[in-house]
């Protein structure tokens, strides 16, 4: 582009290779570390799923084909973990999207204190995941946490609930924390999308007598479609791959009720030393994400076209 703008056309052709050389020179400092510490490990990681690699310095590693995958197929705990992972991912992504859309719509109106509200809405984003987990353990604490105190004062329960320790409440509690953490990112993105919608569309609709609901349904949602598809896809990937938050909140407990796939794989690799097996799980996760995204994006984009 620069060449076409600055120089007459006959200089453009010899200018091209020089530009490429310059580009490569500028890329060079990043290229080596990225290749060694990102591209290569990724490829090796995928391949590791087809071996019986184990932790330890001088252990023989052999190619075992699809052995790990057939073992996974017959492992009940693995299936449980994936079921939990899917419930977690879908619940967090969908509920978070609905909540964030509501907040973004409110912040896009002309209410007062919008600036303050926007700042407060960013708080969860600004906190380290480990601190978020510690904080919610305090909030949900059965004896001196405020959530139990409030529920008891409202007579919604007569005994304190150990949210993170009960089989039935642990996963829902963790999902609530997941929604809380991811809301700012989703809200900010949706808000940016809302601000990009042409105001005249609404004015025209209002002249035609369209209700607020029909404006939302026929203007806001279709106009936001690309942003919605983008942010929900990203949220889905991030949630499916999430680790730190739940690791500190429950470490997968009680009784494996919050054992997300990443936690399962982490334990397999670094608690039991089964590198090959853990990598195989990683491979399965990648396949699931890609299949799901392909399906989701194809459907979404088809309705758009």
């Amino acid at each position, binding site marked *: 582009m620069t060449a076409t703008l*600055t120089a007459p056309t006959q200089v453009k052709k010899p200018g091209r290779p020089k530009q490429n050389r310059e*580009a*490569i020179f*500028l890329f060079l*400092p*990043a290229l080596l*570390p*990225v290749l060694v*510490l*990102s*591209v290569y*490990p*990724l490829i090796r990681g995928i391949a*590791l799923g087809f071996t019986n690699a184990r932790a330890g310095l001088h252990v023989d590693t052999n190619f075992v084909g699809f052995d790990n995958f057939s073992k996974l197929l017959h492992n009940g705990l693995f299936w449980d973990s994936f079921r939990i992972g899917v419930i977690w991912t879908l619940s967090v992504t969908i509920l978070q999207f609905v909540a964030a859309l*509501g907040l973004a719509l*409110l912040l896009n*109106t002309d*209410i007062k204190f919008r600036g303050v*509200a926007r*700042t407060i*809405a*960013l*708080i969860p984003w*600004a*906190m*380290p*995941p*480990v*601190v978020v*987990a*510690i*904080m919610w*353990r*305090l909030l949900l604490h059965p*004896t*001196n946490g405020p959530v139990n*105190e409030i529920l008891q004062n409202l007579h919604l329960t007569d005994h304190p609930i150990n949210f993170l320790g009960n089989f039935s409440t642990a996963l829902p509690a963790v999902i609530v924390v997941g929604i*809380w953490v991811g809301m700012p990112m989703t809200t*900010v993105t949706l*808000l*940016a999308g809302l*601000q990009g919608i042409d105001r005249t569309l*609404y004015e025209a609709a209002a002249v035609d007598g369209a209700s607020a609901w029909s404006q939302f349904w026929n203007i806001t949602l279709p106009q936001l479609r690309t942003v919605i598809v983008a942010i929900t896809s990203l949220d889905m*990937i991030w949630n*499916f791959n999430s*680790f*730190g938050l739940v*690791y500190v909140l429950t470490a997968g407990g009680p009784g494996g009720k919050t054992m997300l*796939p*990443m936690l399962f794989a982490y334990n397999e*690799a*670094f608690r039991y030393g089964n*590198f090959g097996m853990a*990598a195989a*799980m990683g*491979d399965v*996760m*990648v396949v699931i*994400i*890609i299949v799901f995204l392909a399906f989701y994006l194809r459907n979404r984009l088809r309705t758009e076209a």
Partner: protein
Amino acid sequence: MRTRSGTRVLQYVAVLCYLIFLGFPLLWLISSSLKSPQEFASITPTLLPKHFDLSNYTDALNEQGLIRGLGNSLQISIYTTILVLIVALPVSYALARFRSRLRPLTNGWILVSQVFPVILIVIPLFMILRPLHLTNTIPGVVIVYMVWSLPFALWMLQGYVAAVPRELEEAASVDGASRLRTIVSIVMPLLRPGLIATAMFTFISSWNEFFFALVLLQDPQLKTLPLVLARFVGAEGQVQFGPLAAASVLATVPSLVFFAFLQRRLTSGLLSGAVKG
């Protein structure tokens, strides 16, 4: 458009509910960190401490592990930030300015790095770094963080580079300045806000990072702040929640400063600016 007053009231109520949901947890954490141990153990907790008590903070700061964790986190985050800026500046310049074949490749890599679960990368990384004696070292963690902060840093910076008017560079090259000279004396000064934002973002993501640190750092001397905090929680029986809350507040301060600083841009310019690349 006029909004009816009934709707208006509902809107304020809804916003208030959202803000309580999003803001109350942090408020509670801060208030907990200021309560005395006796008040903390009370079974009827109150939102505000009856009297402010800083003993949790002094307790937390007297804890050897915490101070060390703070120091380690600070070191790692600063080194990572400097490295990322050095590497990301030329690359993002090339990404924004040249139509090179490396551009779709880089963008593809940025996407791939989001999709793949870190477990697939961390095991081979561990196997690469171990024979080099870089596991359990700060330089080892720093280079890993650098590589994994790069995608977002590039994505952010190339948006800022694209916003620098090309005409300025052209003027400089007409005046006979080399490409390097142009970058250093024309582009860089104009990029200052972008560089600051990228630096802060990199700092925060290293400061908050948990997973790679968990795998790569076993030595208690080298553990970062998130690891130290997480270990406190693990020891549930004897854990003292007051000092833990205080330490958590301290660990959040850098990110809060960053977000306060960038608040305006985060809600408007940052994202749209970054996509423009």
